[in-house]
């Protein structure tokens, strides 16, 4: 079977997992959430195979164009989510989170994204490609988890304010602390992959570690937003609504760094 087949099967499994999680939202039966988790996990395994096949077929890291990197981002998002769910039991987040994953997968398979494995341009021929892109995207995947749990927090908080208990769903407080945990895992990874490895590679390839290129500035902006999140929270004791809003802005900034800069601003960094 080819990489495309594995990719398609993965996509189907993620959709089925999302369906199970949505059934869980309404039926509140643990069983369907567990089915969702299992399907997402199977999807992750097939996805891993797809990425390995892609690497073998193309002979280089599986994130050198938009299709590949979106697929890798979807993979790391599922990984990040499954880790968080397994450790902290936030099953209701599954339905919403898989929507993001499906969006990544759908974008990756859209006809706008060229899928052929092109040979690597000279600037990308470096082991830094592996380090820089994979660690950054895994960090961003944890920001995606924080994004979803923060949105859920805002809804849960509004519900609790109106005096209704959140039913079987996690309490607002729990969502808030899970958002923080996701940021706490993602932030060091994003710093390492996006900024530190990015600077190291830029120095190796272009001769300067920092050139104020829009992609660089936007990853710095993303980093500053999450630094703001951490300082307001740890030092000034902000929690809840304000923290959630900053985490949401942070993820949107990360996504703008990833997509927006390529399509809207002119950048040195025009590979992916």
């Amino acid at each position, binding site marked *: 079977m080819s990489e495309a087949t594995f990719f398609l099967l993965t996509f189907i499994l993620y959709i089925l997992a999302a369906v199970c999680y949505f059934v869980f939202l309404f039926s509140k039966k643990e069983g369907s959430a567990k089915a969702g988790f299992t399907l997402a996990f199977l999807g992750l395994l097939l996805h891993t195979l797809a990425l390995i096949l892609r690497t073998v077929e193309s002979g280089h890291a599986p994130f050198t164009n938009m299709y590949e990197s979106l697929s890798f981002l979807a993979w790391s998002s599922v990984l990040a989510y499954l880790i968080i769910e397994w450790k902290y039991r936030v099953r209701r987040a599954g339905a919403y989170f898989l929507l993001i994953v499906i969006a990544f997968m759908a974008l990756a398979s859209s006809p706008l994204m060229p899928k052929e494995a092109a*040979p690597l*341009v*000279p600037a990308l021929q*470096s082991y830094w490609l592996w380090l820089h892109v994979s660690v950054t995207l895994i960090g961003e995947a944890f920001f995606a988890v924080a994004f979803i749990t923060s949105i859920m927090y805002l809804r849960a908080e509004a519900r609790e304010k109106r005096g209704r208990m959140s039913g079987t769903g996690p309490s607002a407080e729990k969502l808030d602390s899970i958002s923080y945990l996701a940021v706490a895992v993602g932030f*060091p990874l994003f710093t*390492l992959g996006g900024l530190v490895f990015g600077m190291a590679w830029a120095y190796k390839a272009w*001769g300067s570690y920092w050139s104020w290129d829009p992609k660089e500035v936007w990853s710095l902006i993303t980093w*500053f937003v999450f630094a*703001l999140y951490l300082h307001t929270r*740890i030092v000034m004791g902000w929690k809840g609504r304000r923290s959630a809003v900053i985490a949401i802005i942070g993820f949107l900034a990360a996504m703008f760094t990833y997509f927006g800069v390529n399509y809207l601003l002119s950048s040195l960094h025009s590979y992916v």
Partner: protein
Amino acid sequence: MKALFHFFTSVRLAIVLLIIIIIASVLGTLIPQGRSAEEYLVRYGQLGGILERLRFTRLYQSFWYISLLASLGLNIVVCTLTRLTPKIRRGFRPLVEADPKNIQALKIKERFRLTVEPGAAKEAVKKELARRRYRIKESTSEGRISLLARKRVFGWFGSDIVHMGLLVILTGGVVSGLFGLKQSLSFVENQTLPVLEANFSIRLDRFITEYYPNGSVRDWKSDLTVIEAGRPVRQKTIEVNHPLTHQGYVFYQSGYGWDWQNPTLQIWAKKSSDPSYLRKLSVKVGEKVALEEENLKVSAVRFLPDFVLDEKRQPGTRSLEPNNPAAFIEGWKGEERIFSGWIFARYPDFSRLHGAKEPDLSFELKDTKAPQYSVIQISKDPGVPFIWVGCSLLMAGLFLAFYWPTREVRLVIEESGGKSEVTAGGISAKSQEAFRQEFSDLMSAARKTT
């Protein structure tokens, strides 16, 4: 006044600065940087001048943006220093004694009674703590036993190490800005060029472009020789991502190009009356070559690698890539010019020769060759070591702060009627959720042992 001083040494200032820097940086990416005044005028009209005066058009080099970063750096210094001394004391020489009232004020806490006397209760609790890898300090006063149990104390200093790392990175940025050198050199093969402010020069021995089977570029490689006092001292092939470092100077393969001032053109002459007639001419721009039996001389007057007609219908070149090579040729019989016109390598049908007195002859531009030059970027940046040291500190600090969270448990055991009254509380700046779990496990285990 005191309030003002307080603000300038507070984290609140850091937060205000972060917000301003974020907004300014966003604007800096939306406004194209470093363009000409005319371009801004076209793009923004009147606003263009204002943006330029406020330095939004060269934001990241502007005084005010750099001042913002410097203020943030200064704030980090002040905030870290004012917190560091008490933090070190608390980290290495902590006060073990505690007041049950203060413990009761903690978020994570528990109070329970054990049916043994305090000495035995203490041992039981200590055993449970040690099992979870806590290091324990104890002190007894006024019949009250205080225990301080902690683990991963180093995690506590993570944020300080992060901040030191950031300061070292900022210092590196300043050093780069003040003392960094940059130069871009274009070499043709066998050319030797001196390096700015250095006592050596660089010779390009060979430059090659490697291609993939589909025709796209695989790599550019330059064989460089370092020459000191006229003698070659070092040789290395550099390619993209693999620079050469010599005496603190780093040489990068940054680009390539063709010297289109000196191309050699392959021109084929054909005759419509005689399909077997073919003469291959090799012409340099500015030269005339003879087409013997026709008693004709052909000269190449001009060459354009990427032919295009501009608004005034004048020929020009769109780029320096050979996308649409075209040559202007002339035919001479003695002193008389008998034809002239453009011929195109990619579009032979578009070739037009004017005033042709030899309508039987046609010319095709088959191939164009120009000496290729290699563009080499040279940089000497004494700020770089600071950056790597700073980044290492930054990462070590972040991993300590987030993946090595300090946990602290304080217990006070008091005697009441031969039994023990235990007050316990826990502090963990990060990973509250996990700590809460561990704390409650610990407490229930402590209760069970007695």
